[in-house]
């Protein structure tokens, strides 16, 4: 069955497009090198520009407190975006991450009575199970990721509400509250968690067999299958990871919020995560996973929102600006895989 990735091309078309030739005058190698430079580093440049601007023109921006606030706010999105980057790397997408966060948030208060570790553990197991459902639908049954994870997005939120009986519950467990608000060496725990996870995922993609196989599967699934790669296992693992990471993000968000709110937690997180991944230079067509870029993408989007807020620009402007940035980022990416062959 012909599979179409979110990028709109079939695998064969995308593969042919990427390995094909472009007909414009300028040597395509030269052009693709230039656009790669822009694509890969545009994010960082944008971050630097914004930081400089804000240091200069925004009051109270360059304070430690503010920087901490920004980082703490971006941490949950970043954690989810790490998992999303892996899934997108396989030419898929995981729309259910917000709902998985909500499920994790709903589970926590139910088991905090047994201790922090068991409660978190169960929340993570829930994330794993959600990932398993997604993975089975995509890898075993062969459903398109967008529809498969859509099912969990719809059903998962409902499940979370059922578990929580529709209620918002305040968190009283001191350890969890400490996790949310505490610091080590001046850095908030939640930021440390996000940073450690980012490093781990980065290493995973770069240096492990699984990581290399993931990139290959996303780059050209049939070629990977014919090369003997365990495609199903790779896909399943990818969705499992996405589920676990979403669950961690749910725990973190709950700790910060000091309340478990399954109706609101994770709302629209999938959009933010996808945005961070795409802006960071990981193409929707799969085959390249840029973890550093994803981190940068998340930071950039956070910076933009913060800048706009500090200058009292309304939400509406923030959203329109975000939309424009996404289009720009994708436009820069397209120079590589859009051409015919």
């Amino acid at each position, binding site marked *: 069955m012909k599979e179409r990735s979110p990028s709109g091309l079939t695998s064969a078309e995308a*593969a042919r497009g990427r390995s094909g030739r472009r007909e414009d005058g300028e040597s395509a190698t030269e052009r693709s090198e230039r656009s790669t430079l822009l694509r890969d580093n545009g994010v960082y440049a944008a971050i630097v520009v914004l930081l400089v601007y804000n240091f200069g023109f925004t009051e109270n921006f360059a304070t430690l407190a503010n920087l901490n606030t920004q980082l703490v706010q971006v941490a949950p999105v970043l954690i989810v975006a790490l998992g999303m980057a892996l899934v997108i790397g396989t030419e898929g997408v995981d729309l259910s991450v917000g709902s998985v966060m909500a499920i994790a948030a709903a589970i926590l208060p139910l088991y905090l009575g047994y201790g922090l570790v068991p409660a978190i553990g169960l929340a993570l197991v829930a994330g794993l199970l959600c990932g398993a459902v997604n993975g089975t639908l995509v890898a075993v049954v062969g459903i398109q990721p967008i529809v498969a994870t859509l099912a969990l997005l719809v059903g998962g939120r409902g499940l979370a509400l059922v578990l929580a009986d529709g209620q918002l519950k305040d968190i009283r467990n001191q350890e969890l509250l400490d996790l949310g608000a505490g610091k080590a060496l001046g850095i908030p725990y939640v930021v440390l968690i996000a940073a450690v996870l980012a490093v781990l995922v980065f290493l995973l993609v770069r240096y492990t*067999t699984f990581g290399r196989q993931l990139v290959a599967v996303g780059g050209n699934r049939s070629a*990977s299958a014919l090369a003997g790669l365990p495609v199903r296992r790779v896909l399943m693992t990818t969705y499992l990871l996405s589920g676990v990471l979403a669950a961690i993000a749910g725990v973190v968000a709950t700790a910060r919020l000091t309340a478990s709110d399954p109706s609101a937690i994770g709302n629209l997180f999938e959009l933010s995560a996808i945005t961070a991944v795409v802006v960071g230079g990981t193409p929707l067509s799969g*085959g390249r996973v840029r973890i550093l870029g994803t981190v940068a993408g998340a930071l950039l989007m956070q910076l933009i929102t913060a800048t706009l807020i500090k200058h009292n620009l309304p939400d509406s402007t923030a959203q329109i600006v975000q939309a424009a940035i996404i289009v720009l980022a994708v436009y820069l990416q397209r120079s590589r895989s859009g051409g015919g062959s």
Partner: protein
Amino acid sequence: MKANPAANAAVLTATAIGKRFPGVVALSDVDLTLAAGEVHALVGENGAGKSTLIKVLTGVYTPDSGTLTYRDSVVSFARPSDAQQAGISTVYQEVNLVPLQSVASNLFLGREPRGRFGLIDFRAMNTAARELLDSYGLRVDVTRPLRTLGMGVQQMVAVARAAATSARVVILDEPTSSLEPREVDTLFGIIERLRADRVAVLYVSHRLDELYRICDRVTVLRDGRLVHSGPMADLPRLRLVAMMLGRDLEEVRREGATKFDGERTAEDTEPVLVATGLTSKHRLDGVDVTVRPGEIVGLGGLLGAGRSETAMAIAGALPLDSGAVTVGGKRLRTGSVAVAMRAGVVLLPEDRKADGILPDLSVRENIVLAALPRLSRAGVVSRRRQDAIVATFMKRLRIKASSQYQRVGDLSGGNQQKVLLARLLCMQPKVLLLDEPTRGIDVGAKAEVQSLVDELAAEGLGVVLISSEFDEVVEGADSIVVLREGRVVTELHGADVNEAALLDALAEAGERE
């Protein structure tokens, strides 16, 4: 049957066409003139520039230099639909129709007859479709989805579509690769009709017999350049082949058309691969293949005969309903590529762009892809081991790249193919299944690949070779298994492995119905 070679009005003229792509010059200073009522042969090896030239003529590419003149005025096509509107129709080797739509829909897509209120009049469309196909001698149920018909019939529908669009120029790119001999006759009938209607026909093929049968003039390309252009009748076959290959006439007569050394191995050793009764619904029906160490077994047959499916089935890439595959005496679990690879059976896929290379990854990454688990410890890939393997194979196969980190998508076809071969050889295989190993690569790389295959066979590997070039199959293979519609029809061994016998086997297979 040939048209009067008196001056026919030129319909489409290409002058000094040049076209480059990254790393390769596809066309350089090429001229071509298509005249009304004339069938013009375009000949050349893989990589000679034929398909690039066609794409320039039909608006898929814009040339970097040179001009196109159509019906006495200079034109420039920005997109394929421009060329089509102008009256240039193309039938590609890959059936480029819409498989899910009906035959009639495909015939009239874009020009469906309309009835009341501007809505499509299906009855009129189906009737017109039926009449059209009948007039060409094709009796087909026009309401069936196209994909339910055999490849040959699909191709005929594509030709009928091109012929019916009141085109002034019809380009046929390898039109007979999926046709049986009877269908070829029908096709030639259509071409005669076109000739009578003063349509200019460009016929691209490497089936020399057909060219000599139907074409009036011939243009030969080699390495992107024009080598010869003139009447077909003035060019003897052997000279044509020599021109295509760029070799001396005598040399070709002496040494054959390929780099295969043509020696036959007459081993009586234990076979390294025994495949029996391979059956997969709608694709294969009881196919048997046996390969001995050092033997090159060719799979012969037309497009759609099941050659690729056989190779894929042996390699574990095609699930089987029944059948057994034994390697080195041990029975293999079918349907798993990983299992086959572990047993030493590897496959070079037919479409390297779609199923082979990972274009965005480096040469290094592509080579080690299959061997990753063997090169890692506890899940982490060993840099040192990767370095060693990549260096070894880049050297042995003479892979030309700026470095092992160059993006594979930027390499030439020949080097991409070598990267794929390196990937397979990393697995220390016992059996190599090669599906069109020299397709779409330049002449130099082709020779290298052919020699390499000979070398590997000499080292004791068993090889199954699929190639649409008769020369390769005939000169390279020690024996040939001829397939038709998923069944083995005959096997050729020893002295029977020659072009005449192969053609006979294919033709005979076609007659038997």
